[in-house]
């Protein structure tokens, strides 16, 4: 069995006084301190980052982290757009399973606020299909199309989408690492400016800086010595056509459906066994699609579920979603998001989620999406 034995996440937000590798350094030494481990106990590092190459002309991240570690162990930088963190974790887990290492640190980090929004949006656009970029589609535009299809097909409104933001902002107020610590109302969302109709500013995750790290190991001694540990039950990656125009259905992300199916099978669990999930809510519509594609709710019903705030942490329901605040309120430093999600599940399953702790959770799920569903990573964790 491979376990997560420690986690650290920096504050997410506009961290103007920190560079990309300041954030990585804080996460590396933060997780070492939390686990009371030494650098020398780490056999390899997997690092998820999307934009370092585009924004900073800085891609050789493994060697940069080696400098922080003062070591010669193998290090890998992985990229799958906003799923960079998730695939770093997936590959680290498979690396251990393959016997290449016992103990691996997985880091996700992103530095986005040093650049004007239009440059960041254009850089993020690099994860979309070339012909759709040429047609002028940005990520808000792509998710706007998905939202329009979902609303038309199942009869939902912009107010229904807004409920996702309201819930996640509420969760954000309970997470001191979250970028936004402020509650909002449906009226606030409706009153905010359109980014790509029907999606508005307050339907959208922000541009953020941040880093997150976990340590995973199959070393039994380390696991039994760890103050808190959870088991990795499965991790699955699935892909789909990068272009929306090539997809069979626009009311789902097929990559999520496929990854989830495999992850549940590998863990021998059903969606109903999961009581806590961190899902990829880069836009409000993305959380609705995830709730259905992960099998928590029937296709076409998530719009009603969110209206009743069923998945809010204080509603004691069968499934609670995005207690970290999600991408919307916790922030979305893209490479860090997938690791932060695993970190949140770790905190919840080990009873360390403080004032947002849910009652007795046994199984948790992290769902990280790259682009508008070109890649999806679903990982299931348990105690």
């Amino acid at each position, binding site marked *: 069995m491979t376990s997560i034995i420690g986690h650290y996440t920096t504050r997410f937000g506009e961290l103007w006084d920190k560079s990309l590798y300041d954030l990585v350094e804080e996460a590396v030494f933060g997780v070492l301190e939390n686990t009371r481990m030494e650098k020398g106990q780490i056999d390899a590092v997997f690092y998820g980052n999307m934009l370092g190459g585009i924004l900073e002309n800085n891609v050789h991240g493994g060697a940069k982290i080696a400098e922080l570690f003062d070591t010669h162990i193998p290090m890998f930088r992985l990229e799958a757009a906003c799923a960079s963190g998730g695939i770093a974790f997936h590959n680290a887990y498979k690396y251990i399973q393959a016997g290449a290492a016992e103990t691996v640190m997985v880091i996700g980090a992103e530095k986005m606020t040093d650049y004007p*929004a239009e440059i960041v949006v254009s850089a993020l656009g690099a994860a979309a299909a070339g012909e759709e970029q040429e047609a002028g589609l940005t990520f808000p535009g792509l998710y706007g199309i998905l939202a329009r299809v979902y609303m038309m097909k199942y009869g939902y409104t912009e107010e229904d989408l807004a409920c996702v933001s309201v819930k996640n902002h509420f969760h954000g107020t309970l997470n001191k690492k979250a970028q936004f610590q402020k509650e909002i109302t449906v009226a606030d969302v409706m009153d905010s*400016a359109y980014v790509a109709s029907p999606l508005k500013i307050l339907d959208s995750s922000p541009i953020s800086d941040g880093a997150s790290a976990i340590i995973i190991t199959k070393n039994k001694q380390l696991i039994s010595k760890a103050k808190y540990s959870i088991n990795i039950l499965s991790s699955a990656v699935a892909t789909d056509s990068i272009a929306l125009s090539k997809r069979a259905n626009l009311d789902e992300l097929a990559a999520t459906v496929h990854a989830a199916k495999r992850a549940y099978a590998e863990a021998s669990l059903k969606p109903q066994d999961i009581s806590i999930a961190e899902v990829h809510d880069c836009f409000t519509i993305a959380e609705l699609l995830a709730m259905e594609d992960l099998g928590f709710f029937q296709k076409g019903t998530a719009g009603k579920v969110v209206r009743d705030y069923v998945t809010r942490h204080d509603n004691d329901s069968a499934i609670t979603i995005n207690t970290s605040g999600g991408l919307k309120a916790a922030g979305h430093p893209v490479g860090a998001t997938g690791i932060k999600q695993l970190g949140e599940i770790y905190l919840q399953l080990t009873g360390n989620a403080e004032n947002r702790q849910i009652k007795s959770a046994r199984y948790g799920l992290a769902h990280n999406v790259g682009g508008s569903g070109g890649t999806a990573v679903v990982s299931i964790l348990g105690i």
Partner: protein
Amino acid sequence: MVGIVSYGFYIPKNRIRTEDISERWGKNPQHIKNSLGINEKAVASHDEDTLTMAYEASIQAFKGSNIKPTDIEAVYVGSENHPYAVNPTSTMLAEYLGVGNDYTAYDTQFACKAATGALFSTLGFVQSGMVKHALVVGADKATGRPGDPLEYSAGSAAAALIVGTQKVILEFLGGTSYSSDTPDLWRRDGIMFPSHSGRFTAEPGYYRHILGAAKSLLAKYDKKPADFDHAIFHTPNGTFPARAAKAMGFTIEQTKHARVVTELGNSYTAAAFIALCSVLEHAKAGQNIFFVSYGSGAGSDAFMFRVTDEIDSQRKGLSKSVKSKNYIDYVTYLRHMHINQG
């Protein structure tokens, strides 16, 4: 006693309302008013610029004072929009005013605090006895890129202060500065509109420097907010100075006369002096004034002044200029700012 012996200002009559800009960009005007605290801004005409407005403000400063232009031995003009990249505004101004030739002059540039920086130097210059009288002017015809948030705030105005030692209306009690290399707003030579980094201009820019200078001034002279009757915090918009004043422990009562930005917009280099001119319309002899500017790049100059008995002889009504206005539409605004010429 060294200090300000006279002052003048010029506010162009044209105004454009926040609504008339926001509707062009499909923005909710109430959101903009709430976030910027600006209802309308003053706009210089197509035939006005930094120099013409500096001249208008300067002649008002001489009017009614016992200082003649030929008494001036130093002329400094601060602006973000000097008419020439090379060729001083200050000598053109001095020539038009008839200062003669026995004066020193230069233009200053430090975003919105170019003129308070010059005032800082001038007070020292006069205090040292090297010159008897100096003219310090802040003037700007400012705008933002169409569609940029700066478009709602960047305005036009000029203000002139004469510094001397006789018949001082505003005695200089002390000052300090706080500076760092913080590029929150910049404009390269030949580029029409400034660039800025959004919210970065707030916390690491404005607040760090203005609060840094304000705290250092109070500490240096062992003063507290309650020792002052009026407080002026630089006015890039209506909300920043209110938050800064509150953070320092100043009351709304102490800052109420400095809030003309709401109706005039941010006249960049002139803005701090315009707020001071507004306070001087109401200030009484014996009152103390706390005055802190901010310039992107970044720095703040903080001053303490005491109003003297001479104030009544020099008092001028800025409120009359605030009320004297003529509304223009967005296209007229673009024409006045020469934006149609690219």
